[in-house]
């Protein structure tokens, strides 16, 4: 309930607040603090944050080039594999951390008034810091593989942006729902596993059977990864647009991203007034 009279001003809990600068400085503060704690908590800081995607990469690389031979005939398969893992890790890390983020910050939420949305957004920003560092490793591989810089590389920030919007939407949605439904955490872990195999991370889109290829490419994560393969790794690979069947189909993946983002905001804003008391 809001009330105004003269200079009187009362605000109940809100999702975004009315001071964008405060919103941003809070988000940045929480994200950098978490990031710092992870880095300075151990001597090997940066290396540790790289270890996980690199380990996953190492295992998958050995399995899919030496054992199952998925990578045969795919140009610069290791580079693609690493780039896709790094992008997907951002999505999965951000969203799984976000699920329980409000509960983890219970102390702040119950004792201080601040825009509630800061919490899941700080998780997304924290993820973005990691993504930035991991992309350095990707570019090291890109150059090591002898891939020539191209103008198409400029598409990468745009693809990262789309990924960030998607992840942020999922993050806000899940964090708000988790306050109500506490079994969401294991459910989401399973869904992330499914998404990992449903998206072209360990395989490339052209390896999908023709009958499924277009449908599989509609998944926004797939669109992002497919386009990234074309723009960053192999100019001869089909673009994300080609794989979904042309420009006229673009509204589907983009629409899904927008829908999830708006849904996340809406659900979060709806839950905001009672988040503090339902924790």
């Amino acid at each position: 309930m809001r009330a105004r009279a003269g200079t009187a001003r009362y605000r109940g809990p809100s999702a975004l607040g009315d001071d964008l600068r405060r919103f941003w400085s809070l988000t940045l503060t929480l994200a950098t603090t978490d990031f710092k704690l992870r880095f300075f908590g151990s001597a090997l800081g940066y290396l540790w944050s790289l270890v996980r995607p690199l380990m996953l990469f190492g295992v998958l690389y050995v399995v899919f080039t030496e054992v199952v031979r998925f990578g045969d005939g795919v140009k610069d398969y290791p580079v693609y594999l690493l780039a896709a893992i790094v992008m997907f890790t951002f999505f999965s890390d951000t969203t799984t951390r976000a699920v329980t983020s409000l509960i983890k910050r219970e102390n702040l939420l119950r004792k201080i008034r601040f825009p509630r949305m800061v919490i899941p957004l700080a998780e997304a920003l924290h993820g973005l810091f990691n993504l930035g560092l991991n992309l350095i490793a990707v570019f090291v591989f890109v150059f090591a593989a002898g891939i020539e810089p191209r103008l198409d590389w400029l598409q990468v920030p745009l693809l990262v942006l789309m990924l960030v919007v998607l992840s942020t939407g999922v993050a806000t949605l899940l964090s708000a729902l988790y306050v109500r439904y506490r079994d969401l955490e294991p459910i989401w872990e399973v869904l992330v596993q499914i998404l990992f195999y449903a998206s072209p991370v360990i395989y490339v889109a052209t390896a999908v059977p023709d009958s499924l290829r277009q449908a599989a490419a509609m998944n926004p994560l797939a669109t992002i990864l497919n386009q990234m393969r074309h723009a960053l790794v192999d100019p001869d690979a089909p673009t994300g647009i080609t794989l979904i069947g042309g420009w006229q189909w673009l509204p589907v993946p983009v629409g899904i991203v927008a829908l999830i983002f708006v849904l996340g905001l809406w659900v979060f804003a709806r839950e905001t007034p009672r988040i503090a008391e339902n924790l």
Partner: protein
Amino acid sequence: MSAIAPDTVQRRAGRLAAADTAVAVHGVSKSFRLPHHRYSTLKERALHPFAARSHDELRALDSVDLEVKQGEFFGIVGRNGSGKSTLLKCLAGIYSLDEGQIHLHGRVSPFIELGVGFNPDLTARDNVLINAIMLGLTRREARARFDEIIAFAELEEFVDLKLKNYSSGMAVRLGFSVAVSVQADVLLVDEVLAVGDASFQRKCFDEFDRMKADGRTILFVTHDMGSVERFCDRGLVLERGRIADLGAPEDITRTYSELNFGDPAERADSEGAPARIAAAWCETTASERIVSSLQGEDVIACFEVEFAEALENPAFGLIMRNEVRHTIFMPTTELAGGLTGRFEAGSRATVRMRFSNRLAPSRYTLTPCIGPPGGGYGTHDSLARGDDLAALLVEGPVTGGVVDLPVEVEVVRE
């Protein structure tokens, strides 16, 4: 001495009456749902989509009306679960209101506790900056006021120490310093001074005084009747979400101790008791009631007893406990000779115990007891007990012990 001269009180009362309203609360109610299952799950929801989930409602605040003037130091007291913190959280905008309105003039501090979000793995420096930003400063303001904050907390030497190596008192000092650096017009404080040594408590209240002089308003939740009487201009007692009393600090503390010890319902429970402790207080040798005393002065601890039955030679005792609940001092009539004589049913008596105040500066609580002849002051063997019925704040230089006995020190050179 902390007894305020009457003319000061009147002047302050006059100034407050003329002041603007800082906080106005009209008919505010707030309920919490207490679901019968702690958390609902998606699985349940999917299996029984239309099942109404049962829950109880707890009315934490029930049509609360309240006006606090600008520059007022306002105390909020009440027993556990009476709705004090809920009221503060509603004012801070942490909880939404179910009914009613709140009008605020000026900026309200957005926090209700000190040092929220302090991270033990970070240094004091990082924690101060983060906490200041959380509490509403911009990054630049936080950096600009950093030195001030550390200086106020007197922790200059420990700036780069991780917070996990801080004592709880040091952490509270740090939290308080950050909190006062946030320029709020209305400050909400929930039980600040539970930790922290006497000299820092002093400093906190000096800071509150300075804020009041600036026309800022302080709403202060506490269980400590001593600080209510000492610092508050007015206050209220909450009981089950309703205002049980609102007014002068003396009335508030009386209502509060009645709620705690003399509640009619509770009195019915203790119907069988042969005697009851009606009130307790401390006074000076000039019979002036006090809540604080300077070390070295004589203090008289008093309590009033009502006899429901005739008693022969009951024993009277007083347990004085310090803040960490250690019994520091326990005078009894047994020590003083024993035989107290006969008290008729329906009669009243006042027990006075005069002692030279050699206690270390701290806050003490008084628990008067009536025991059977020969003594017995425990919760089970006493005839009546009034736990923490009164408090006494002792002021003076801090030396480190629990008592400061008269001492002569001599150093002899061989």
